[in-house]
């Protein structure tokens, strides 16, 4: 974005942003789906929310499927492979560094669990040397394997220390030759000269000049850099679409403190309109999470920056949200996925964190 010394009033910016967002998401002239009358008899007036919503939701889904509008770029949900044929895949994954025997054993178990999530009816794992794993899977078509099969799936919760910065290719002096991921993890704090803040309080305790220096580091960060995986150190992370940059503090809940996850179905009556994923935490993780959310929430300190927490998956922010009140149970981490996406994410999280990221080198039909 351009540097504006004398930018438009915030109201003007807001009006433009609202209008742009509204028009982009629902273009002018988009026709409404036909109104589906509620099928059930009337209920006493006064209540707005309706118990007939499941039926309506179904009606809306049908209407949307028929509807001509194409506004979202969401990938369509995959249909399961036909049961008649038994497609199979041979997947070769490779680690960038040699793995220990223990790590290889762990990787083998996790990959088999993930394969089951993908619908594999059977499979075998062959370990080649200390860095290559070959999976032979039946019941999984090559198209359904996905590059993320070898991703670590390390989920952490980190505080968002400052307001989010937009990221656009122009704002970073990115060397164009190297691609994301292949670049080694960079230490953004090398040039800082003082310890980077691990939480909001530490950031606020910095002098104005130091805060400015931290902001500059964030501003100059290139989302193509491999994100750091050090849990006790603040990191700069981007969202998947590379539209926003976050300065995140040390992990409140680390990736070895998250446990099984479950996909939860839409439930219109409770206001969940899409599939979501709920993660459980280990007892230690739960204690830390309850302690943090008990101290930092909208009830106790309205609009406090420390209330904002990001869910980070393999160094990428999948969601940032505000803590409304103390959370002592399972935590919903993301919503708005399709059924397949939610089940896949939940299944992969449940399978566990790979000891190292594995690149999918090849996927061949079998």
């Amino acid at each position: 974005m351009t540097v504006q010394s004398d930018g438009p009033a915030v109201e003007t910016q807001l009006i433009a942003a609202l209008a742009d967002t509204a028009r982009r998401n629902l273009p002018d002239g988009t026709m409404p789906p036909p109104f589906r009358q509620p099928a059930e008899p009337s209920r006493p007036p006064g209540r707005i929310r309706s118990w007939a919503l499941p039926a309506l939701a179904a009606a809306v889904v049908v209407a949307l499927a028929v509807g001509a509008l194409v506004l979202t770029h969401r990938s369509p949900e995959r249909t399961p492979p036909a049961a008649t044929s038994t497609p199979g895949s041979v997947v070769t994954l490779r680690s960038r560094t040699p793995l220990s025997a223990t790590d290889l054993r762990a990787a083998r178990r996790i990959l088999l669990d993930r394969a089951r999530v993908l619908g594999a009816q059977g499979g075998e794992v062959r370990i080649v040397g200390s860095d290559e794993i070959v999976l032979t899977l039946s019941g999984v078509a090559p198209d359904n394997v996905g590059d993320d099969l070898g991703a670590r799936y390390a989920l952490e919760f980190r505080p968002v220390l400052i307001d989010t910065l937009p990221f656009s290719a122009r704002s970073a002096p990115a060397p164009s030759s190297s691609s994301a991921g292949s670049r080694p993890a960079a230490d953004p704090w090398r040039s800082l000269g003082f310890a980077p803040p691990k939480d909001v309080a530490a950031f606020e305790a910095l002098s104005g000049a130091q805060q400015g220096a931290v902001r500059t580091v964030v501003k100059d960060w290139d989302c193509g850099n491999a994100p750091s995986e050090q849990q006790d150190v603040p990191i700069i992370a981007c969202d998947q679409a590379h539209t926003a940059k976050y300065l995140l503090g040390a992990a409140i809940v680390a990736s070895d403190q998250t446990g099984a996850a479950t996909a939860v179905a839409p439930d219109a009556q409770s206001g969940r309109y899409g599939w979501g994923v709920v993660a459980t935490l280990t007892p230690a993780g739960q204690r830390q999470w309850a302690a943090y959310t008990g101290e930092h929430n909208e009830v106790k300190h309205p609009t406090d920056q420390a209330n904002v927490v990001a869910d980070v998956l393999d160094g990428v922010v999948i969601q940032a949200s505000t803590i409304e009140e103390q959370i002592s149970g399972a935590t919903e981490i993301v919503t708005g996925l399709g059924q397949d996406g939610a089940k896949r994410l939940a299944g992969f999280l449940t399978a566990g964190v790979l000891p190292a990221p594995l690149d999918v080198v090849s996927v061949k039909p079998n």
Partner: protein
Amino acid sequence: MQLATPATEVAFEELYRAHWHTMVRVAMLLVDDVESAKDCVQDAFVGLYRKPLRNPDAQLAYLHRSVVNAARSALRRRGTARRHLRNAEVDDVQGADHALIVSAEHAAVMAALRQLPQRQREVLVLRYWAALPEAEIAATLGIRPGTVKSAASRALAALETTLGGLR
């Protein structure tokens, strides 16, 4: 059941066609994604269908109120106890390939908007997108007009601070 006579059915259809688009946009700015927004709006129209209002002038206010309520429920229930403020894959910014720079600015404004308490966000959306007068915003949200004014100025100040950090 005899909820609506054919004549009022027609009137309802007209109302639906006339306001669906506007309402979905308002809801979308409150809940961040179009699909949830459409569900909120459907919900609101079902309420109106079930309980037709005598005074046609009140219909729009009723719809606004229902949409805001549905959006609140949707947001409230998105997390077990967390309000979902910003889904990282924000639909509004990655949707188009063009106008990248402009959209980065708008994305920053929208991101800042999502960090506000929901009440303040509602006030801003109703005021600066729906362009409702203060009294109507107050009626929609069930607060006093004075509160609308103060919430709006607090929200704008917060936005300014957040966005100021970007320059």
